[in-house]
């Protein structure tokens, strides 16, 4: 019998344990709030995370593809990417699925219902999921770096405009032009 089928039968327990594992990565004083407040608007981190774990769990059990998994895993990683975690702690919770399967299906593993091959295959799928998490995480971080870069770029542009060393060049768009060379000179008659 394959792991996915056995694990799917224990879905609610598995997701609950996985969720608790994720919440334990937050400071102890906040975990009660994140774990227990169910309203999605009062507790977006908790609500988004559990929904994400449920969706990803179901998709993993159904053997969904990478492209199908990305949007499902994105919300939880997106949140962790702006919280005070190191890059590894942002994605490491994915790997906890390996521990989960060993804890929940201990009997089946020792009795040989799940063979070594099956377990290795499952581990590889989890590794794949972790790599997806890493891609999402980097995508989020790159987006944030871009915000910063754009902010500096637009501020510089405005400063140049303010200092009157920037002018509009017809048919070319806005370019940085030395004031004394081109402003009102090279392109338009005075």
């Amino acid at each position, binding site marked *: 019998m394959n792991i996915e089928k056995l694990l799917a039968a224990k879905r609610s327990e598995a997701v609950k344990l996985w969720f608790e*594992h994720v919440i*334990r*990565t*937050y*400071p*102890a*004083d*906040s*975990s009660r*709030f*994140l774990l227990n*407040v169910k*309203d*999605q*608007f*009062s*507790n*977006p*981190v908790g609500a*988004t995370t559990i929904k994400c774990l449920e969706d990803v769990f179901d998709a993993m059990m159904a053997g969904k593809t990478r492209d199908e998994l990305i949007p499902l895993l994105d919300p939880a990683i*997106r*949140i962790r990417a*702006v*919280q*005070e975690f190191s890059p*590894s*702690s942002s994605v*490491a919770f994915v*790997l906890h699925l390996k521990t989960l399967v060993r804890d929940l299906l201990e009997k089946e593993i020792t009795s040989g219902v799940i063979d070594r091959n099956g377990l290795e295959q499952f581990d590889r799928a989890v590794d794949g999921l972790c790599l997806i998490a890493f891609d999402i995480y980097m995508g*989020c971080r790159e*987006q*944030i770096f871009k*915000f*910063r870069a754009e*902010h*500096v770029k637009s501020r510089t542009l*405005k400063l140049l405009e*303010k200092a009157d060393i920037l002018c509009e060049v017809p048919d070319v768009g806005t370019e940085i032009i030395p004031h004394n060379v081109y402003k009102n000179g090279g392109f338009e008659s005075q």
Partner: protein
Amino acid sequence: MKIKPDEMLKINTKPPKAHWMDVPPDFSEGKYLYPAKPKTLEYLHLPNPRDWSPADEDWKLPENWQKIIHDGFKERLDKYRSLKVFMDICVRCGACADKCHFYIGGGDPKNMPVLRAELLRSIYRNDFTIFGKLFGRLAGARKLTPQVIKEWFSYLYQCTECRRCSVFCPYGIDTAEITMMGRELLNLIGVNINWIKDPVSNCSRTGNHLGIQPQNFKEIIEFFCDDIEEITGVKINPSFNRKGAEVLFVTPSGDAFADPGTYTFMGYLMLFEHIGLDYTLSTYASEGGNFGLFTSSDMMKKLNAKMYHEAKRLGVKHIIGGECGHMWRVINQYMDTMNGPADFLEVPKSPITGTVFNSAASTKMIHIAEFTADLIRNNKLKLDPSRNDHLRVTWHDSCNTARAMGLLDEPRYVLNAVCNNVFEMPPSTTREYTFCCGSGSGTNTEEIMEQRLRGGLPRANAVKYVHDKYDVNMLGCVCAIDRAVLPPLMDYWVPGVAVTGLHELVGNALVMDGEIERTLNLRMEDLPGAEGDTDE
């Protein structure tokens, strides 16, 4: 430190259970705001100008810094009864604990408003209460150490003074005022941030936060007028610094400088032209915002006074203020006792409808959303809301206008008159319960982008809900900081939702006398369905 590959996966997920007083703040890069430059502090005559970084071990505090903080605290406890009450009456019921957007989005316990206030209360107990003096830590007191100053700096700038927590406090403790007092105290020893001090300095010098000089300010507005002429065919010639105008119009300089605020400014100009308002803009009082609010009461008073001085100099009857957030907290809650009453002005009366705005009887200054709502109610505007039909709009109540002045229904009244597709976010996230953008009170700078994004998560999460459910693609607001910071917040959390000011939507819907057929909106984008629209 060498880590073996198999050790890398052994991540300890069990958080340390340390007492909050023993957890030091984190000042690694990206987790602190940049400090004010010495030159800026010198210009403002503020104490202890020096080069320093929060990442440094030694913050170069003045020699007698503990005495300065103690005396400053005492002075403020004597001066503000509210502060004394706020220090004493909290019973730590926890009603505020999970209401702060930074706590909700990040999970750091010191962002629970009760604990953030405790950062100051612990010093208050130690210095000013017998219990604290006798029992120390047992009574929740602690000595003032450099570590405490660092903690204050970290967490008082992780509060946007939005006051959502105070809505839930059964005692009405205004945690934002505790933050304000804490920041005032830090200013006494030169611990302050560049993103606030530079605007304050600019505003003192040129009249606006961005340091736009009078001639540039005029040029910017004239540039808007050129765009308006291209879009509508109507040429507008606003007056500047004109004595004897009936109304002085003041808006945040962000509206003149940064998209999408600029489109909102165009909306104001079109509205005033359309109704023939006798108004003038000032190149000196060219800032509605007041970063003094985030510095000290003295600085807030100084920057606020500038608008009233200009109103007096020009001899106007009253002031209309643009779409700004904290400007209205200053006007509505502090102006009257700082610089008021503005006896030299008249109680605002709409010259178009005759409506008298008694709510502004003392400050003599009304919010443009009130003014426009009154125009619409009296059928003074010709509007074609179908021009905004491609937009599915939801409304973000900006913290200060919503919670500090109760401006809840006027913007919605205007919005519903100029847009056909309006969808509300869930009630626990709007009106008095609105969530902050995450970047208010002078923290809208890029060095702490992660803090801003997680602080804005509760707001974005509610926007995402209406985006998913109703296909909402536009977020409206009446605050210049919102307009500057919500676009990246939306890009990160809810791609596909843009941000607009209220009067941009008004400008698009407004049918002006003598206008040409509109094919472009104020962003110079093709109007869907209009002639020339290549997408149709």
